């Protein structure tokens, strides 16, 4: 087999990174909407809140499937080690997503059990988010391996750090959800979304601070990467930009800006994600296997790349069209009724 012209591993790391970020962003805001749902003032408000994501949540969740399958296709060794290591967080996440997903339909068709599926939607969203936070925390902490297998215990994921990242992600998605609702609602409901956004924002701020300080202490390599000269000069824009965005987020939440809180929240997620990538690179199974160790054969990556480069732009186009069709404020008569 001929060596490919370019190192496909770089490309696939980029595509996977982009795919996971899209998932975090898109399902992040609709899971966040689910988290805030329970606090919405009254049934009509809850209906509007749910209708604001009814036409798009399914597409958003598809990125999770793509993320999982892209990991399997491009870095199968990582898939084969990380998923068994996260057996229970993933189980909890999947079951919570089942509950939350069917709630959209069940809630409106099953009038007597409205309350039950209201809770199913809210707790499903919250638990799924928390479980994803556990996944994130466990990933940062790394996995015990033996050859090509996970060799640790199935409860290894349960640590103070992963519990913290679990809570952090609930606040984070909550902030994204509040940002989305500020765009999609008006009047009193929008004011309510702003208040929720402020509460989540404080949680996010504290979480980012603790995680950013805690992570370098877990691995000397990460500490060295951030705090030695000249890296500290190159990398200092990341925390500085984060602080600036945090300031903007607070201003936007307290002003009449409608798009500001969402955009700033996306920015905060992007920078946190970037910070994580800087800490972890080039590990895909921390701290055992690099992206290159875990990569699938170039023939597989090439075959996948052809279609992906062609299809992703098309997917983004029609997904964009769908968002455009449902643009504007959420309406009671569009969605479930």
């Amino acid at each position, binding site marked *: 087999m001929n060596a490919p012209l370019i190192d496909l591993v770089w490309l696939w790391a980029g595509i996977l990174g982009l795919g996971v970020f899209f998932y975090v962003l898109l399902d992040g805001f609709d899971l966040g909407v689910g988290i805030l749902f329970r606090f919405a003032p009254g049934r*009509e408000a809850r*209906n509007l809140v749910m209708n604001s994501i*009814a*036409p798009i949540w*399914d*597409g958003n*969740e*598809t990125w999770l*499937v*793509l993320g999982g*399958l*892209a990991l*399997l*296709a491009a870095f*199968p060794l990582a*898939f*084969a*080690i*990380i*998923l*068994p290591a996260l*057996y*229970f967080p*993933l189980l909890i996440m*999947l*079951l919570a*997503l*089942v*509950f939350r*997903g*069917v709630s*959209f*339909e*069940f809630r409106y*068709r*099953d*009038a007597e*059990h409205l309350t039950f599926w209201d809770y199913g939607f809210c707790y499903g969203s919250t638990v799924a988010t928390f479980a994803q936070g556990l996944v994130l925390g466990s990933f940062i902490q790394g996995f015990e391996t033996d050859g090509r*297998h996970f060799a*640790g215990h*199935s409860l290894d994921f349960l640590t103070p750090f992963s519990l913290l990242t679990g809570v952090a992600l609930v606040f984070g998605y909550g902030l994204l959800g509040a940002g989305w609702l500020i765009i999609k609602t008006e009047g009193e409901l929008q004011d309510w979304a702003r208040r929720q956004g402020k509460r989540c924002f404080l949680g996010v701020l504290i979480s980012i601070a603790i995680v950013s300080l805690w992570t370098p202490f877990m691995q000397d390599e990460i500490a060295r990467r951030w705090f030695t000269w000249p890296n500290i000069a190159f990398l200092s824009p990341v925390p500085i930009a984060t602080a600036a965005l945090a300031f903007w987020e607070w201003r936007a939440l307290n002003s009449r800006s409608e798009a500001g809180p969402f955009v700033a929240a996306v920015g905060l997620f992007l920078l946190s994600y970037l910070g994580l990538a800087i800490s972890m690179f080039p590990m895909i199974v921390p701290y055992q296997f690099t992206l290159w160790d875990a990569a*699938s*054969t170039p*023939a*597989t990556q090439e*075959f*996948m790349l052809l*279609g*992906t480069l062609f*299809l*992703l732009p098309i997917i983004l186009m*029609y997904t964009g069209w*769908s968002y455009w*069709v*449902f643009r504007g404020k959420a*309406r*009671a*008569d*569009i969605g479930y*009724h």
Partner: protein
Amino acid sequence: MDLDALILSRLQFAWVIAWHILMPAFTIGVASYIAVLEGLHLATRNPLYLRISNFWVKIFAISFGMGVVTGIVMPFQFGTNWSRFSDITANIIAPLMAYEGLTAFFLEAGFLGVLLFGRKLVPPWAHFIAALMVATGTLISAFWILAANSWMQTPQGHTLVDGIFFPTSWIEIIFNPSFPYRLAHMVVACFVTTGFVVLAVAAYLMRQGRYVEEGRKMLSMTFKLLTVLVPLQMVIGDQHGLNTREHQPAKLAAIEAHWETGSGIPLILFALPDQTGETNKAVIEVPLLGSLILTHSLDGTVQGLKDFPADERPPVAIVFFSFRVMVGMGLIMLGIVVLSWYLRVRNRLYETPWFLRLCGYAWPVGFIAVLAGWVTTEVGRQPWTVYGLLRTADSVTPSLQGHEVLISLIAYMVVYLMVYPIGVMLMWRLVKKGPGDVPAPPIEGGRSKAPVAALSPARREGGES
């Protein structure tokens, strides 16, 4: 008690995939049906098609939602419980599944919102395109997932280096020997399954004396479709069987419970296969018919199970009986279709109460046949995940403990046993309501002021009292 992570993982996979496949088996057909109805409405402007379409869109929404969330569970099973399989086969299998996501799931999800909620927001042709794209997505999805499954059944186009599969030809991998038959068999099965559900619903509405016009239209359209598809499915199934004889002889021997290789063999209608005794008890058989069906000649030779080492034989009884259940369902379907010809010729298709009642009872035949067929082909592949090359026992996650799988299996059982009955109940409620709603108006200017029934507590309670 010593809990076996392998057995429990197999049970868990069987549990989550069996419930999942019921939804695609239905939604693949309904999506196409909705696209056809939307197309007919666009062409003829007959509001009848629109009413029928709106009715099925609501039922589709519930089943599709359940299919999506139970489908998300599936790829994660490969990682959590079958990590060695993932590691060993990913080079081959993973791109096929990733292409399913890229070409099918996004297409379905991207246009689903417009199909379900967008009728007021986009022109009719765009709504039709959305329906068409959702239907196309479901079919593309079938293409890729069956390519992946068929490769596991009849692998080719790869090399094995250090115990890991590497691709040598993607065309050979995708278009492996059993793929065309499996794809045709499954897609037709989905249409037929949906067809019998539509029949049952139509018959119910007609017997209730409500929405008779809609019921007749559905009944008539569906019987025309089934007249073609049910006999066609039997021909495809026969061809699929010949393919299995060629490429998976041990599976075929198990299906027929034939222990000895021979020519001019009988067709065993019923038996109690004895795996350890390597024989059958309580046999009812028809001489020579086995060779005729399996080889299309009276003296054709068919390999028996004893040609294969005992540890390379599938569990015979399960495969034997599940295959007979599937064929039995097929015969019931054919019987109903033949009756419909007779009644249509005599112009009594819509006015025969016992026949409508029969159609009403027939809704699960497709689902039972699909499940039985998958049990046949998947259990028939055992003891392998990749036929002849990778054993199921070598595919499971090494770190997994039995009690861990037991916990997850129970969790999946509890949740699915809660979600599925409620989902079915809600769909049944929609059926009982019937396609009565006046179709939504086309694009309207400005904002609709009418609050919807479910949104206003007062009206909801008023409506219920």
